[in-house]
């Protein structure tokens, strides 16, 4: 609880544990409600997506980030501005594909999984899948179609959580005027 002291000043910040526990309760309920892990993953992604398409406006309104000119810049903004602003962490950007259309976000201390141990028989569950949905939703609103997947998960014994983002295409028909 000592961490709280340095956050008290900003009214927009909440106790991280409240957030982690709320998310935990949500996932636990989904695991109860759905029979297989795939369905839970899908639900989490959908929820994340719905958050993402709204979150992006908040992010743009509050940060002075301009339009990104390439995917590398996008990766930078996601890790240094986006994750920093909403989760208080800065994932490492790495594992670029040679074409520059694919990269990984490496998260060492995932705030979502702070107190979590996966129960037996849920090896297919991507506990943090809501992040994938949120990233996809955000990027879609700035006209980027991106595939987002969790490829390594600390909860499953990997040393790090790795989220892989693959650029698919620019959503040309959704481009606002002046951007083409």
């Amino acid at each position, binding site marked *: 609880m000592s961490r709280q002291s340095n956050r008290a000043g900003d009214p927009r910040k909440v106790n991280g544990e409240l957030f982690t526990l709320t998310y935990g309760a949500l996932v636990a309920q989904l695991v109860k409600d759905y029979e297989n892990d795939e369905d839970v993953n899908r639900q989490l992604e959908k929820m994340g997506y719905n958050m993402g398409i709204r979150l992006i*406006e908040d992010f743009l309104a509050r940060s002075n980030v301009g339009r990104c000119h390439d995917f590398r810049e996008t990766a930078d903004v996601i890790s240094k501005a986006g994750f920093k602003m909403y989760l208080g962490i800065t994932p490492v950007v790495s594992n670029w594909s040679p074409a520059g259309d694919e990269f990984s976000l490496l998260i060492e201390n995932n705030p979502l999984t702070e107190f979590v141990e996966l129960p037996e028989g849920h090896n297919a569950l991507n506990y943090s899948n809501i992040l994938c949905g949120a990233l996809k939703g955000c990027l879609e609103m700035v006209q980027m179609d991106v595939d987002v997947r969790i490829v390594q998960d600390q909860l499953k014994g990997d040393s790090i959580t790795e989220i892989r983002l693959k650029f698919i295409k620019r959503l040309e028909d959704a481009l606002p005027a002046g951007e083409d």
Partner: protein
Amino acid sequence: MAVLSVYIINKAGGLIYQYDHNSSRPEIEKTFGYPLEVVLKVHDDKVVVAFGERDAIKVGHTVLGINGIQAEGRFLRDGRDILEVLAAEENYPINIKFGRPKLTTNEKIMLASMFHSLYTISCQLSPEPRSSGIEMLETDTFKLHCFQSMTGIKFIALTDPRQVGVDQLLKKLYEVYSDYALKNPFYSLDMPIRCELFETNLQVCIEQSERAATGM
């Protein structure tokens, strides 16, 4: 100095929010004797002054009411035809209320989508690629300021030409939109905004901006 009204247009060109802050449409009420010195005609299903400007009554003003009875298009609320009422001598002296007609919701929606098209056209007309589109339109009576977010939402403010700091106001309105419309889980994206919290916070922003401008 004043902010007159605010429009928010979604990326498809649909009006999702409109708010009139200061009305600059005065109404004039006057009693006339027979014969009427003002020439009236029916235009666009309204009774409009065609000739004979006097006092504050201008060409283009519409008959808003007669003897306290409100006009609805070219008829009075009680069903009588306005031109017929005005033609009959036995109705005089008569009290007529003139003014600029208020835009109806439908007209606002139409104008908003028309502006959306103009904005798009301006981007294409631009000799340079990646034009920002219309940021400001200036007339002698008002200025239109437009800010388009990266996601394609347009925030438009009509202000007095002397109003300063409108860019910051539009940025602030974007924040209010992202807070009180988008974070309301029961607001669906791209739909008209009917959220009380949004409306109050928007009004506060506008008033602050007006106060900041007059304080300078």
